[in-house]
């Protein structure tokens, strides 16, 4: 089933979540790296990551590295598929806009 403009999943409805998902598209990132990319506050980023994890878009791994907690995020297969569908929907939308109206 293809994604429709009127039924965009919540994950893509805020820019911050969209940036997080786009960043994870090229591989796993830790919290510090995501913070650097998004320039969001710790609280805001943490809340958005939790929402994305609950929706099954990302997987969060917590570990102790050098006696410090480190949070690493990875895009799940579902998240990758949904992202692809979202981009396809955007492209479809732009393509339709460029198409001349039928006579």
């Amino acid at each position, binding site marked *: 089933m293809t994604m429709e403009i009127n039924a965009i999943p919540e994950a893509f409805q805020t820019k911050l979540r969209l940036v997080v998902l*786009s960043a994870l598209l090229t591989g796993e*990132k830790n919290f510090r790296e995501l913070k650097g*990319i998004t320039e969001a506050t710790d609280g805001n980023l943490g809340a958005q990551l939790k929402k994305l994890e609950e929706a099954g878009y990302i997987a969060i791994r917590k570990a102790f590295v050098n006696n410090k907690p480190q949070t690493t995020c990875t895009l799940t297969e579902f998240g990758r598929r949904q992202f692809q569908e979202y981009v396809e929907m955007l492209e479809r939308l732009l393509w339709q806009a460029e198409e001349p109206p039928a006579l």
Partner: protein
Amino acid sequence: MDKKIEMAIDDIALIRRVIERTRQDFSKISVYFIGIGILNLAVWLSEEIAYMIQNLTGYGHPAARIFWWSGRGLILAGYVFLFVYFYQKVKKTGNEICEGMVKIWMIVLVGIRILGWLYIRLLPNGNDDKITVLWRCQELIEVLPVLFALFMTGILTKRTLITVVTAIYSIFYFILFVSMKEVPYGTWGGVGTRISASRVCIQCLMSLGMIALGIYLWRRREGGLKETDRG
């Protein structure tokens, strides 16, 4: 313009920027270059210590030989360790540019060691002019692939400064090489020996130069995306 179309254009542009931004993050690979620099600095130090022991105790002291050979072993083992460690780290991030750079540098660094060793083994014995020239040319086996890798690093990372500095260094190095100037080396505790100034120039590049490259790539991490404040 339709609001939906505007949103689609905005989102596609944002996704492109984020992907480009993550591809241009070389902070992980920067530590790799710092590691190479520190390794070469340690080997340089072990060579100096070997010469110092030689100066103080006489030629052929076993301790000097230990320092001499441990330095050579350390560098090869260090290069392999750095490659394995950083290749795994970089592979996880999915940054193809960094992955390619780690591979190029591994081939270059281990390759020059093996080729250099083979070249010395194949050199005929003696100390006439021809052999002295061939002996000096061993430097080129070491420096030419490194210069190639540095140019590749500048091009792949799109950092013009790296390319420009490499070009300036290359000119400087070749002037030193053809000038055949010699400088004292390993002078701690005695007279030491004399080596070509271009050889010292290579050592500076491989140690201080690599550390500087690493620090430069670390500091040149690009900033975040302000657009995320919206929505």
